[in-house]
C-alpha cells in the first residue's frame, strides 16, 4: 500500500469514528429523556424550561435535532453558553489550548524518559537497578495523579512555598493570548507542579512496555549479528534493539494520550487550572449543556487526532507496515 493511500484511508476512518462518537453522545444525552430537565436547576420555572427547550430545538423531531447537531459540529458552533452568555466555540477552544499546553509536555517527557528508562532496565537485566526501576514504574502507575498533585501542592506550594498553588497565571498578570503565554515566566512557574504530577503517572507505562519489548527483541538473532559486527553495546542497544522495541511503545503512546487527556480533568481540578476537562466538569455541574457537549467532543477530536498521528509514526517507523 502506498503512503498516500494509507494516509487517506486513516483520515477517512478517523473522521468516521469521530462522527460515530458524536452520535453516541447525542443519543446518550437523549436516552434519559429531556436533556433540558437534566440540566434544570431547582429555581427554573416552566417558562424558562420552555425557553431552553425551544432554544435547543428540543420540540423538533429527533432526526431534525440530529441533523442540526451534526451541522453544529461541522461549523464548530454549539450555540450560546448558558453560563458565559457567549458563543461556545471560542471558550472551549481557549480552554482546549490551555489543556494541550499542560498535556503535551507531560506526555512527551513521560514517554521520552520512560522509553530511555526502559532501555536501561532491559540493559541492566538481573541487576538491582532493574528491580528498582520495575518497582518505581509500578509505583508511578499506581499513584493516583490527583493525589500526587495534592501532595505536591501540600509540600511545594504549602510548606515550602516554592510554587503558586492554583491557576495558570498569577492574579495580577493578564491573559493576553496563547503566544504571549508561552513567553510568560509566570506561566511556567504555574505549570511545573501539574506537569510533574502528570508526568510521573504517565511514565510508568512506557517504562514497563519498553522493558518488555526490549527483552523480546534482545532474543532475536539479528541482535547477535549486530554484536558480531563489532558494534558497541550502546550502539546495539539504542540503534537496533531500542529502535525495534519502540514500535509497541508508539502504539501505547496513542492510547496513553487518550487516557491521559481524559484524565486531565483530575489534575486540572487539583490545581484549579483552566483546562477543557475542568470546563466540562464545571459545565456539567452548572447545567451548561452546550459547553459540556462541545468540550467532550473536542477532547474526543484531540484523542482521535493523536491516535492518527501515532499511526502515521508507526507507519513511518516500521517498514513492514508499508509493504502490506
Amino acid at each position: 500500500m502506498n503512503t498516500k493511500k494509507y494516509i487517506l484511508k486513516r483520515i477517512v476512518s478517523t473522521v468516521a469514528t469521530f462522527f460515530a462518537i458524536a452520535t453516541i453522545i447525542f443519543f446518550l444525552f437523549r436516552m434519559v429523556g429531556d436533556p433540558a430537565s437534566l440540566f434544570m436547576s431547582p429555581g427554573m420555572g416552566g417558562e424558562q424550561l420552555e425557553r431552553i427547550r425551544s432554544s435547543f430545538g428540543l420540540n423538533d423531531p429527533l432526526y431534525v435535532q440530529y441533523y442540526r447537531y451534526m451541522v453544529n459540529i461541522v461549523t464548530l458552533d454549539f450555540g450560546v453558553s448558558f453560563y458565559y452568555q457567549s458563543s461556545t466555540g471560542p471558550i472551549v477552544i481557549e480552554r482546549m489550548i490551555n489543556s494541550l499546553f499542560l498535556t503535551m509536555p507531560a506526555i512527551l517527557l513521560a514517554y521520552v524518559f520512560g522509553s530511555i528508562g526502559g532501555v536501561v532496565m532491559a540493559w541492566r537485566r538481573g541487576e538491582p537497578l532493574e528491580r528498582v526501576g520495575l518497582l518505581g514504574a509500578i509505583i508511578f502507575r499506581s499513584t493516583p495523579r490527583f493525589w500526587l498533585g495534592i501532595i505536591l501542592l501540600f509540600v511545594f506550594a504549602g510548606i515550602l512555598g516554592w510554587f503558586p498553588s492554583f491557576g495558570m497565571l498569577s492574579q495580577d498578570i493578564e491573559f493576553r493570548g496563547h503566544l504571549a503565554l508561552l513567553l510568560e515566566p509566570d506561566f511556567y512557574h504555574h505549570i511545573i507542579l501539574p506537569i510533574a504530577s502528570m508526568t510521573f503517572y504517565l511514565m510508568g507505562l512506557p517504562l514497563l512496555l519498553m522493558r518488555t519489548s526490549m527483552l523480546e527483541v534482545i532474543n532475536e538473532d539479528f541482535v547477535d549479528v549486530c554484536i558480531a559486527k563489532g558494534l558497541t553495546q550502546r550502539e546495539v542497544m539504542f540503534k537496533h534493539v531500542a529502535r525495534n522495541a519502540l514500535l509497541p511503545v508508539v502504539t501505547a503512546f496513542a492510547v496513553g494520550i487518550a487516557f491521559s487527556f481524559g484524565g486531565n480533568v483530575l489534575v486540572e481540578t487539583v490545581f484549579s487550572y483552566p483546562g477543557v476537562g475542568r470546563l466540562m466538569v464545571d459545565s456539567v455541574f452548572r447545567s451548561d449543556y452546550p459547553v459540556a457537549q462541545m468540550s467532550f467532543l473536542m477532547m474526543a477530536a484531540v484523542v482521535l487526532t493523536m491516535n492518527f498521528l501515532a499511526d502515521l509514526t508507526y507507519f513511518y517507523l516500521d517498514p513492514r507496515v508499508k509493504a502490506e
Partner: protein
Amino acid sequence: MSLLEVKNLDIEYQTKKGSIKAANDVSFSIDQNEKFGLVGESGCGKSTIAKSLLRLLPDNGAVTNGSIMFDGTDLVSTDEKTLRDIRWDEISFITQSAMNALDPVYTIGNQIVEAIQTHENVSKKNARNRAGDLVELVGLERERIDSYPHQLSGGMRQRAMIAMALALNPRLIIADEPTTALDVITQDHILEEINTLTDTINSSLFIITHDISVVAETCDKVGVMYGGELVEVGPIEEVFVNPQHPYTLGLLNAFPTIEGGEDELITMPGQPPDLQDPPQNCSFYERCPYREERCAHADPELTRRSDSQYAACFVSEERDIGAEYESVVDKEEVWLKL
C-alpha cells in the same frame, strides 16, 4: 600455525534448574584457508561453540575453562575493545536462521554500510558502493541494497547476509547452519556460494550443520560433536573413509545413499545424554552398539588415530569398528533400519 585454536573449552549455562554443560573439554583447530565442518544432532552444543568464538553467549552462558586463540589473541580473555576490532573485521558470522538475522527496520544496504563503517574510515558513499558490489557478488541485483529484509525471500536474505559477512574480507567466516530455513534447491546454491566466495577472499570457514553430506561437499576437516563433547575430529578423507567413533559411523550411515534411497536411512535409537547431569563415563554409552564393560566406568579421551585424526573411544583403539559394522547392527538390533 593455525588461525584458530580452541583448547579444552568448557561452556556452561546457568538455569534455575541447575547448570547445563553445553561444551565439555572441546579442542580443535582451523588453519588458514581451511574449511572446518562441525556436525552433530540438535542440542549437542554446536551453536554454543560458534557463539563462544565471538563472545556472543547469552548472559546465562559462560566459558568456564579453556582458551580460544585467534592469531595470537585469546578471545576468551581479551578486552572488549580488542574483541570488537576482531569482530566482523577478522571473523564474521552467518547465523542459524536466515529469516531473523537481519534487522527488520533497516535496509540491507544500511546494514552492510554499518558493518563497513564500524571498522573502516570510509565515506558513506564509498561504503554504499561497496555494499552494492557485494550484493552483486552474491547474485542479487544492485538495487536490492535499498530493500528491507521483509521484501526479500529467504534465499535472498541469506545471500544478503553472506554479502555482509564478506564485506571486510574476514579471515574466518562462521556459518551456523546457514541453510536450514531454505528449500532444498536454494540450499545447494547458498552452500555453493559460501564455498566459492570463501575461496575468493582467501578466508577460512567454520560451518555448522547437522547434515553430514554438507560437510562432505564443502569441508577439508570435520569435527563430530555428541552431547557437548567433540568425539572425533580429523581431515575429511580420513574421517569419512575410516571413522574411529561409533557415533561418526552411525552418522555416516544415517544419510541415505543414492542407490539405497530412503530405505537405507538409519536412525539411532535412544536419547542424547542429559547435559544437566553429564555422565561420568563415555557419553555415547547409552546408545552405543559396541559398548563394553569398561565403557560404563571410564570416559575415553580424544586419542590420536592417524596423522591428524583424533577420536574418543576405547573400542576403536583396538579394533576396526567399521569392519564390524554390519554384524553389530544386525546382531544387536540396536540401530534400527527404517
